[in-house]
């Protein structure tokens, strides 16, 4: 298919604004007379608030007011309402907001905040979810039984379990009875931080007429509106949420974060803009963090490698409030045994309150946790079975016609996992013979786009002068992946396109471009559908609940696929209106008309879009039609609620399959792992913008490498995050990127996606950690089960093995 916009590597429209500093982010917005908020946070992980002394702070210069949670008569939440905007009666983690100081300047607020004194009665606390479910563990929410929750969630009052999701397929006991080899292991994935460049911020004002306008760095303006209108008992029309440019989200700005607090505080100062911007340090405990999963996986195989039983139990440290982690628990449950067809499955996924910062969405949303256990496990199983790890996987993968754990039948159009694995194997050099990737693609009758990026020179790599074969070990391994979006059954998207008299168009949606490039990609979809150059489409740069149309939220890698479908429909409706008017001019039926090159054609005669945009004017002056606006809307196809007993149903709107592979160099002397080559193969249906699609994957891979090799939030015994800074929480830099980053897209079209596209965004992160850990096993023969694979862990493991105490090679 020849295209004019889709499938082209259009450079992103917002690039110039962003690199020159013109782009306006939340912290840049400064209204006259703005008041500034500084929050006084809990210094203990769990306790009763005995007293709050604010007298001195109130007298400090520039202070407008000191707000506590006392007057907040509501609990915040979407799926489960469990969180006050400012702590009430109790604190549940170090860093929980207790008092908000509102002052004329940020400086004055910081100074006054230091004068607030809070007295606590300390309660025993618990940081690890496995401890939190033990008998006699400190109870973090005594009132769990009275919280409102949506019917699909399953809290256990009287315990710290805020959600239990269970999946059952076949008969697990029988499965294990029939198995020849049973393998069981424990795995862990620690809490990590998103480390977005832009810290969270919100600016709120209540009008004297009791209407709320809030600017926020959120991925979810309509969720924010819905929750704020609920808690303040206002119609949707009285709450307006505006989102300027976002400087990185990665899920950390989805759902809600600091908006209810900001709106609650602002309510005490009607007519004033009240601004609350987190510091870099607060980003590690004052908004959302990610992951924190402790799991046990047990698999039963027949001698020939057939995987016939899998039992997974996953425990998520959701933090002190569970609302934002609750769907991760379910999402991980959907994916907990990887992209394999297994007759007998038994999954328990638990969301557990812990006295730690709140866990929310983090790129991958349960999938990296699930794949960390599954893909490590498959490698371990292959060795125990004496079967090649690639062959073992190929024997068990989900293929067209397979039934997944949820009872869904996999279709041809879900993508080609088998081809993905074979291509990844070939690219990383694990194949019997090196073949051309294009040749493998031809074997499988699938279109591919391949891209290779070279890494920067690494300053710090030791130049070893003598040959030291004993020292460096090279390892290679693969880790397949699958991902489905976790979303409300009615997670809708909509779009508006307005035609202008010069043949240009304005596009309005409420999906947020937080760096992923949706402004450009959605414009390409609109342009392609309208049949015009992409420069003629202007995507509105902000989202505004009063202006732009409904979008559930910008999560689940769903913008190109779902918002993109709405945009395509909106563009088609513009064309329908053009044709309707043109049909009256030509006096024919609209079905006899064609659209191309910015014109509506009847045979050899045509009318330009320009003449139709505002309504057509006949030579005598009389007009028909009127200004043209197209709208489009979609909801996911046929999603259902899970079955109460088996946890199964139409729970995933689509599946994206792929495979990742790593080549690592392990320095046995220093315990440093360096990723030399990393390969990602994904069947994405259609690359709307190959350049940005590649960027998405490369960014995800490097972000995933950070979690695999270094990142972890370090808690003190007292529950404090000890490494709350970029000095002590190390994320990878460009120099840490692999020397060779290979990204290969397969294009098996998605029937309900625009131009065949299916979700792509988070996917590149899903199997990074297991691919690297499997390659480390291949290199030095040590199996690791806990992330991150940092120097401490490797050195310790190598040291112990050399002392003959452990290791298994």
């Amino acid at each position: 298919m020849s295209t004019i916009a889709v499938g082209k590597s259009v450079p992103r429209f917002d690039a110039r604004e962003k690199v020159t500093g013109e782009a306006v982010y939340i912290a840049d917005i400064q209204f006259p007379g703005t008041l500034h908020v500084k929050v006084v946070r809990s210094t203990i992980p769990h306790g009763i608030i005995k007293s709050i002394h604010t007298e001195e702070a109130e007298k400090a210069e520039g202070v407008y007011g000191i707000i506590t949670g006392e007057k907040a008569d509501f609990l915040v939440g979407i799926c489960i309402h469990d969180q006050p905007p400012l702590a009430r009666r109790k604190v549940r983690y170090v860093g929980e907001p207790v008092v908000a100081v509102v002052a004329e300047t940020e400086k004055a607020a910081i100074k006054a905040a230091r004068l607030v004194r809070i007295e606590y009665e300390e309660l025993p606390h618990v940081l690890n979810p496995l401890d939190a479910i033990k008998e006699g563990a400190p109870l973090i929410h005594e009132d769990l039984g009275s919280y409102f929750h949506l019917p699909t969630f399953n809290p256990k009052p009287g315990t710290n379990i805020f959600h239990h999701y269970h999946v059952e397929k076949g008969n697990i006991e029988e499965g294990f009875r029939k198995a020849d080899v049973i393998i069981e292991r424990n795995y862990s994935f620690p809490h990590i931080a998103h480390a977005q460049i832009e810290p969270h911020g919100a600016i709120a004002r209540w009008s004297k007429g009791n209407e709320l306008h809030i600017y926020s760095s959120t991925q979810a303006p309509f969720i924010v509106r819905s929750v704020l209108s609920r808690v303040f008992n206002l119609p949707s029309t009285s709450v307006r949420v505006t989102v300027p440019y976002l400087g990185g989200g990665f899920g950390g700005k989805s759902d809600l974060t600091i908006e209810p607090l900001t709106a609650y505080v602002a309510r005490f100062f009607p007519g004033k803009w009240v601004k609350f911007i987190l510091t870099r340090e607060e980003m590690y405990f004052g908004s959302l963090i990610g992951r924190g999963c402790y799991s046990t996986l047990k698999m039963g195989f027949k001698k020939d490698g057939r995987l016939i039983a899998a039992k997974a139990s996953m425990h998520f440290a959701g933090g002190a409030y569970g609302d934002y982690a609750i769907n991760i628990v379910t999402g991980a449950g959907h994916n907990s045994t990887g992209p394999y067809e297994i007759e007998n499955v038994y999954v328990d996924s638990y969301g557990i309150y812990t006295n730690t910062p709140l866990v929310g969405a983090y790129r991958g949303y349960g999938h990296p946790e699930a794949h960390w256990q599954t893909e490590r496990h498959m490698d371990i199983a292959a060795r125990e079975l004496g079967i090649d790890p690639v062959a073992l996987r190929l024997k068990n993968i989900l293929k067209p016609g397979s039934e997944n754990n949820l009872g869904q039948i996999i279709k041809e159009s879900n993508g080609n996992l088998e081809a993905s694995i074979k291509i990844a194997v070939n690219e990383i050099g694990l194949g019997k013979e090196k073949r051309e990737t294009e040749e493998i693609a031809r074997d499988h009758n699938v279109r591919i786009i391949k891209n290779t990026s070279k890494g920067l020179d690494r300053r710090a790599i030791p130049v070893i002068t003598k040959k030291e074969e004993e020292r460096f070990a090279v390892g290679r391994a693969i880790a397949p992946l699958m991902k489905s979006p976790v979303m409300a059954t009615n997670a809708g998207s909509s779009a508006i396109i307005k035609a202008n008299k010069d043949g240009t168009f304005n596009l309005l949606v409420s999906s947020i471009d937080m760096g992923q490039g949706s402004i450009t990609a959605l414009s390409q979809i609109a342009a392609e559908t309208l049949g015009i150059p992409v420069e003629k489409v202007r995507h509105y740069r902000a989202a505004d609940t009063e202006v732009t149309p409904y979008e559930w939220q910008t999560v689940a890698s769903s913008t190109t696929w779902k918002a993109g479908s709405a945009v395509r429909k909106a563009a088609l409706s513009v064309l329908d209106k053009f044709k309707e008017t043109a049909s009256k001019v030509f006096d024919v039926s609209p079905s006899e008309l064609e659209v191309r090159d910015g014109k509506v054609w009847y045979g050899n005669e045509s009318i330009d879009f320009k003449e139709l945009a505002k309504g057509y004017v006949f030579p005598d002056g009389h007009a028909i039609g009127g200004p043209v606006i197209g709208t489009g809307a979609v909801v996911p196809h046929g999603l259902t609620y899970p079955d109460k007993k088996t946890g199964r149903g139409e729970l995933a709107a689509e599946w994206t399959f792929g495979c990742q592979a790593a080549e690592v160099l392990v320095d046995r002397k220093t315990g440093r792992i360096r990723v030399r080559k990393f390969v990602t193969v994904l069947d994405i249906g259609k690359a709307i913008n190959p350049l940005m699609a590649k960027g998405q994957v490369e960014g995800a891979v490097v972000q995933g490498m950070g979690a695999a090799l270094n990142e972890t939030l370090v808690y003190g015994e007292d529950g404090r995050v000890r490494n709350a800074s970029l000095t002590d929480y190390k994320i990878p830099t460009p120099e840490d990127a692999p020397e060779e980053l290979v990204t290969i897209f397969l294009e098996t079209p998605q029937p309900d996606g625009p131009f065949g596209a299916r979700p792509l965004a988070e996917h590149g992160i899903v199997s990074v950690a297991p691919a690297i850990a499997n390659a480390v096993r291949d290199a030095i023969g040590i199996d690791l089960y806990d992330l991150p694979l940092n120097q401490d862990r490797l050195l310790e493991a190598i040291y112990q093995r050399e002392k003959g105490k452990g290791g298994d090679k």
Partner: protein
Amino acid sequence: MRYFAPASLEEAINILLEHEGAIILAGGTDVMVEKRSGKIEPSAVVDIKKLEGELRYMRLSDDRLEIGSLTTITDILHWGKLPHEVTSLKDAARVFGCHEIRNRATIGGNIAHASPGAEFASTLLALDATVQLAGKDGKRELSMEDFFLGPGKANMERGEVITGFSVPLLSGSSSCYMRASRVDGMDLAIINCAIRLQDLDAENLAVRAAFGAVAGKPIRIVEAEKLLAREDFEGVKRLLFDTLNPRATSLRAAPMSKKLLAGNLAEDTYKIAKERLAG
């Protein structure tokens, strides 16, 4: 807090004497971070960037390299005339911070901050450099050993400014600096090692080995030097593993890792220095 930007060294010294609790600002890559975090609360900031004409230089004499304290890390990294004997300075500059930090940070600031793991601290210590200070009573010169007192503590009187460093260029010598870090880009050293070798005669080498981030200040370990001179690498590893006692609270690495890394790093650093000596 007051801000001063003196135009002469004398003026800077006077302002520092007049304001108790004043701090010197050069590149600001440590001062700004520590001020923001509340770790320091200076009464005044004395910005000495206007003294660049006087204090930003690299000069060679017959047997010494003179480096002004306001010389930036980028200056060192890109200086074409750096003698091969002191290549360790380039090694340190190469892994220092990131582009932006290297452009701002100065060698004087890196030393004045007296961080136990500073790149140039162990480097200059191994090179047997001296630090030059100016104060109300004139100038004085200290060995690096005498300069570092403890974490964040340097042998500097109130009113003193580091003006530069003097590095001996020994004939028949070479040097190398290496570090272990968590990431290859912007990071601080887990531990570091700097070594200077000098050919004494056909069979004997003189070794100076300095280690950073293994104690409260960068230190020479004479026993390790002796073992390295004999190329007894297993001995060096055993010695450092048995004798080092790094603090347990480091967020960069466990004490065990530092003990294991030190000997390996010493071996690597020695081997590269040795290669440089030959070539």
